[in-house]
């Protein structure tokens, strides 16, 4: 399925469940997502991890409504609890089956996103391991000067921005040297297809969602 259409469908779902209060719909979405992930060979361990990750915030939201809510407190508590899980599992159907390169290809080829945005973000994204290391280096450099740089220290962010400025210029120059010209046409080796099928799935998905919200008597 075309990644951009998949993302669009998931965004529609996420928006819609943000404004509805149907526990069983949230649960149904989680189940559908698990089935989808299972079909795509997601490991049980990963699925278990997805259950653990949102647990704390889910409990937080649950207890807030249960103790300090108004109206039908129990209903709202469970709506929010299941909603988080719906966000995380539907999100996982995207992030665990699609990589950022496929999304960038689709946005560039099917939606005419200027290539400087697609490849600029990819270039930065591919530096993630270096960035994680650099944050450690900045912190260590501070400690060696006797200064602890915490997440509220302006210097920590200042240093990070200095490095970002430096790297962004290096990368932009390197990409230019590899023939990249802003706003110039390029050819595409990996073809990102956008079939009628994708639109049909999107349409069916959105209709299915409306049936879930307005037609099926969940309670």
């Amino acid at each position, binding site marked *: 399925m075309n990644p951009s259409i998949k993302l669009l469908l998931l965004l529609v779902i996420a928006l819609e469940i943000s404004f509805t209060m149907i526990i069983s719909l949230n649960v149904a979405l989680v189940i559908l997502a698990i089935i989808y992930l299972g079909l795509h060979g997601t490991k049980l361990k990963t699925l278990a991890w997805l259950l653990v990750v949102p647990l704390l915030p889910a409990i937080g939201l649950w207890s807030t409504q249960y103790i300090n809510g108004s109206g039908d407190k129990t209903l709202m508590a469970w709506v929010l609890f299941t909603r988080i899980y719906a966000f995380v599992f539907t999100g996982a159907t995207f992030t665990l089956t699609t990589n950022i*390169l496929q999304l960038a290809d689709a946005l560039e080829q099917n939606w005419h996103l200027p290539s400087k945005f697609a490849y600029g973000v990819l270039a930065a994204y591919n530096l993630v391991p270096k960035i994680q290391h650099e944050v450690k280096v*900045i912190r260590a450099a501070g*400690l060696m000067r*006797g200064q602890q740089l915490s997440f509220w220290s302006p210097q920590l962010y200042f240093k990070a921005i200095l490095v970002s400025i430096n790297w962004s210029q290096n*990368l932009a*120059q*390197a990409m230019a040297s*590899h023939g990249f010209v802003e706003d110039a046409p390029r*050819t595409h080796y990996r073809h990102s297809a956008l079939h009628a099928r994708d639109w049909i799935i999107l349409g069916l998905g959105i209709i299915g969602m409306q049936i879930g919200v307005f037609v099926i008597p969940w309670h």
Partner: protein
Amino acid sequence: MATITLHNLTFSYPEAVAPILDQVNLTFASGQFTLLTGPSGTGKSTLLKLMTGLLSLPANQGSISFNQTDLTAIVPTDRAAQVALMFQNPNQQFAMDTVENELIFALENRQLPPQQIPQRLTAALDFVGISHLRHRHLNHLSGGEKQKVALAVIVAMDSDVILLDEPFASVDPTARASLLRRLVRLRDEAGKTIILADHDLTDYEPLIDNVVRITAEHTLAIVPQVQQPALFQAFNQRVSTHTTWPTPTSGTPLFQLKQVTLQQAQHQLLEPTDLTIYQHQTTLITGPNGSGKSTLFEALVRLQTYSGQLTYLGKDIQKLKRKAYARQVALLFQDAETQFLNITVAEELAQCQKYAYGDYFTPAHIDAALQQLNLAGHQDQVIYTLSEGQKKKLQILLMLIMQSPVLLLDEPLKGLDLASINALVQLLKTTLAATQQTLIIISHQLTGLTPLIDCHLRFDQHQLQYQEAF
């Protein structure tokens, strides 16, 4: 085939007082391999970036032309066919995740029809001899492998002129030799024009056609054929030294390595090693580029993972508190800016005085040191507007003021002129005599440094051991 002509080229950076290149006139003949030399910070990178069109030349500041066509007249999309640049830092050189995707990216930029891409890509990887790296992640490659990929990209794009900016700074000798062989073939078989900037002249003599030097007057001069042997010989002599250092056997162990191995990505840098480094000895570590010296330092300050056990004064460094350990063992990073925390020179000095471990550096001592290092009068200057040499000297002074019991120095003399080196070594000597710090120094540059050294570790071929002769 392309001839490059520089005509009255002048360039200044916005905040600089004097131009970095002043009225440069030179022609690089087509199909020749030219070595561009000159100390660090004299404008080699600037020149190469101007020639690639990455920095634009202001109007009326001369011209750069390829086969009589002005660089500005070449449409941007055709530029990469004309000229490509390989950078010094292999880490910020790629946009994509894998080797294959990076080559595809470059060929798409060149607007090659998709059906021609696989063949061009395979041929380029074969030419450089890295077909086995095709599907590998760029983040998992060594410095040498990354530069081979960078060359493969240039080969695939089929650029006429290949510029290389100190490309071997983090490349091991085997990879370096292999890259140089490829460059020579590109000249001989494909008629490429090659200009390579380096301050290290090792091994170039039999390969190159011309040597061009950046002069003190900020212009370029061709080194006549007859003077070339003397230039290379002088360089080789500079490296060899007749000093010998004893292998230490007694003293208080500072660091102990027990079956320590170092990895970088998927490469083993250090085989399981047992070794002791002693307190109050100044230890020099030498070894080829890419052997793992900086990685060793990062492991010693817990910025890099390793296997085996590393102890500091008998204690496993992983069991020490990060904050307390950082006050014991500090690292002078290769890039001076990494060390800075504030804006002006005065603020940096004040910060160090406030947090210093000892009180050897009184205001009077600091003033004297600033004089000695030729930094006096710069107190109110913004650090980021200092020259690279001034930054380096300030960085070393700051870390000396801190007086951590152990200081690891990674290439402290890189890019400094001889006067600065002598002043620094003098400062290090007097400070050490008073503070009894332990220094461990990684350096390629030995001139002027040797009087400071007590013993010598050699890091080469995955081995780290004491060596008496250099």
